[in-house]
């Protein structure tokens, strides 16, 4: 079929895409003490290039204090049959400022440029929403989970933008009884969206008070939506197994009903699926045990802040930000995951204070897998205020990005010895990198209709 719009005809087609040569990651100065704007860094990931493993371009945002965090594309494989669309713009929300930066990555992929800013104050006044997080495109339109109202109170809702990045209003018709927002993912063939819960911006932005979990200021539920009606229809109470249910991912296979959620504080992976009687079910499939620490009165939780499913749906990757390990599980049978790989980088347990000659401040945090499943890029900063609590040395050292070689056939992970990007050496001082994406699409963006 010679069409085509952006992306790939299927996940299997995406796996066969050319190897990525550029990678974008956001880097922050918000909360670091350096009075400079956050920026989008272009990293050279072409092993044949003379600037391999280096930041080759920095696009500063217009203002300071945004706290760039997650990103999303204007279009993905859900527009594959729409030749009028292209994967040209990367959306960079500022969690604190509420501004949504629209970045043109297509005119010069090595040197992205600012196309437009959707003003944070305009978003607040038109939609009563703030605290942007996850960006997904819906065909030619865009929805962004917003974690609070204009005053930073939960549950927030979903900002709806058209393809020209004009504010259409709120996407959802109702938030039902949902208490908090965070991440979401949808599977159109099953008319379902799943959303998860962090906390109100006013709760998580200033930092993490553990006691507030017990006061129900943090989430412990996931929600199933009627995607076409845009209303939540079923809630799963995960309880102590699901404290801070953050990232949610469906299988990439658009026919599958299986999906996964990483509960950060419980450090569990929750698996959901639709059973033979068309009912949604959930179970805990991975439980990372807390680890003793010589100086802590209580064992250290893993803090599983992110999960990722490989494009072939065979492997699930997770991090333990406080322990310091990245793990790979074979989820060919999603009810019975098998640990197939593990590496250590930073963390509080002292297992890998240095990687490739660079001292690690922080632990494995965000990660992005190549479409072929062979290269996993991992960064170390979670969120400025939370970094400052758990890893205060990150102020002087900054974040790093490493690459893990993954075996997509037999399983296994090894830290690549030739790749490291040290954001402690940035020209304006130590910055912190977080989410990463590739120009050609990645393992956390594309959805198939």
């Amino acid at each position: 079929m010679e069409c085509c719009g952006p992306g790939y005809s299927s996940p299997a087609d995406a796996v066969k895409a050319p190897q990525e040569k550029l990678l974008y990651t956001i880097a922050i100065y918000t909360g670091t003490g350096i009075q400079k704007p956050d920026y989008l860094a272009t990293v050279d990931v072409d092993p044949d290039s003379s600037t391999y493993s280096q930041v080759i371009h920095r696009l500063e945002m217009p203002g300071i204090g945004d706290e760039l965090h997650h990103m999303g594309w204007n279009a993905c494989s859900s527009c594959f049959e729409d030749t009028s669309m292209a994967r040209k713009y990367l959306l960079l929300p500022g969690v604190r400022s509420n501004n949504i930066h629209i970045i043109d990555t297509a005119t010069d992929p090595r040197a992205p440029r600012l196309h437009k800013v959707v003003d944070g104050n305009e978003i607040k006044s038109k939609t009563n929403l703030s605290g942007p997080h996850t960006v997904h495109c819906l065909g030619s339109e865009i929805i962004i989970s917003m974690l609070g109202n204009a005053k930073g109170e939960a549950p927030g809702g979903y900002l709806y933008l058209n393809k020209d990045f004009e504010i259409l209003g709120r996407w959802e018709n109702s938030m039902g009884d949902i208490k908090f927002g965070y991440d979401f993912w949808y599977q159109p063939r099953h008319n379902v969206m799943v959303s998860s819960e962090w906390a109100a911006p006013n709760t998580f932005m200033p930092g993490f008070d553990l006691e507030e979990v017990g006061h129900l200021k943090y989430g412990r539920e996931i929600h199933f939506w009627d995607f076409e009606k845009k209303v939540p229809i079923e809630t799963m109470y995960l309880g102590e197994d699901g404290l801070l249910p953050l990232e949610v991912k469906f299988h990439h296979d658009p026919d599958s009903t299986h999906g996964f959620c990483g509960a950060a504080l419980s450090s569990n992976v929750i698996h959901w699926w639709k059973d033979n009687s068309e009912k949604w079910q959930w179970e805990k499939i991975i439980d990372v045990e807390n680890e003793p620490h010589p100086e802590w009165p209580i064992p250290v939780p893993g803090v599983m802040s992110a999960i990722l499913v490989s494009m072939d749906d065979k492997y699930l990757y997770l991090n333990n930000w406080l322990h310091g390990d990245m793990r790979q599980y074979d989820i060919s049978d999603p009810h019975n995951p098998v640990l197939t790989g593990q590496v250590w980088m930073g963390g509080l347990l002292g297992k890998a204070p240095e990687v490739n000659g660079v001292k690690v401040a922080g632990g494995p945090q965000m990660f992005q897998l190549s479409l072929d499943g062979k290269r996993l890029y991992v960064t170390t900063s979670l969120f400025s205020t939370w970094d400052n609590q758990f890893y205060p040395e990150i102020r002087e050292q900054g974040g790093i990005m490493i690459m893990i070689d993954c075996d997509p056939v037999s399983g296994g992970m090894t830290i690549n010895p030739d790749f490291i990007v040290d954001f402690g050496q940035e020209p304006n001082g130590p910055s912190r990198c977080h989410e990463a994406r590739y120009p050609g699409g990645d393992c956390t963006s594309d959805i198939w209709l």
Partner: protein
Amino acid sequence: MAYTVTISNRDNVRYQVDGKRSLLDSLRDRAVDLPYGCKYGGCITCAAKLTVGEVDQRRQVALNNRQINDGYVILCVARPTSDITIEIGVESHDKLYRNPFLDPLKPYELKADIAAPKEA
């Protein structure tokens, strides 16, 4: 009403500011380089430490009671109600962040909406 703000970690520089405006707006207008984020008192980025005087920061929702007792004020919503002395920037944040597992809050040190009264 005008008050004098002294910034102790900037060579004790002094500014006259309007008590009706937030300290962030007043000081930024005078070209003081200050971190900030949400501008509604919820995100803690602009926290500074008050060492002398009083402010009205009833609109802030970012600080717990321990942070308030340690002198922290949220500049984007705080207004002076007397002459004040503050420390600004991350140099003033020595007590702002703590590891919540190693240094738990007592019930009266939580945020105002969930704090228990301090027992005498």
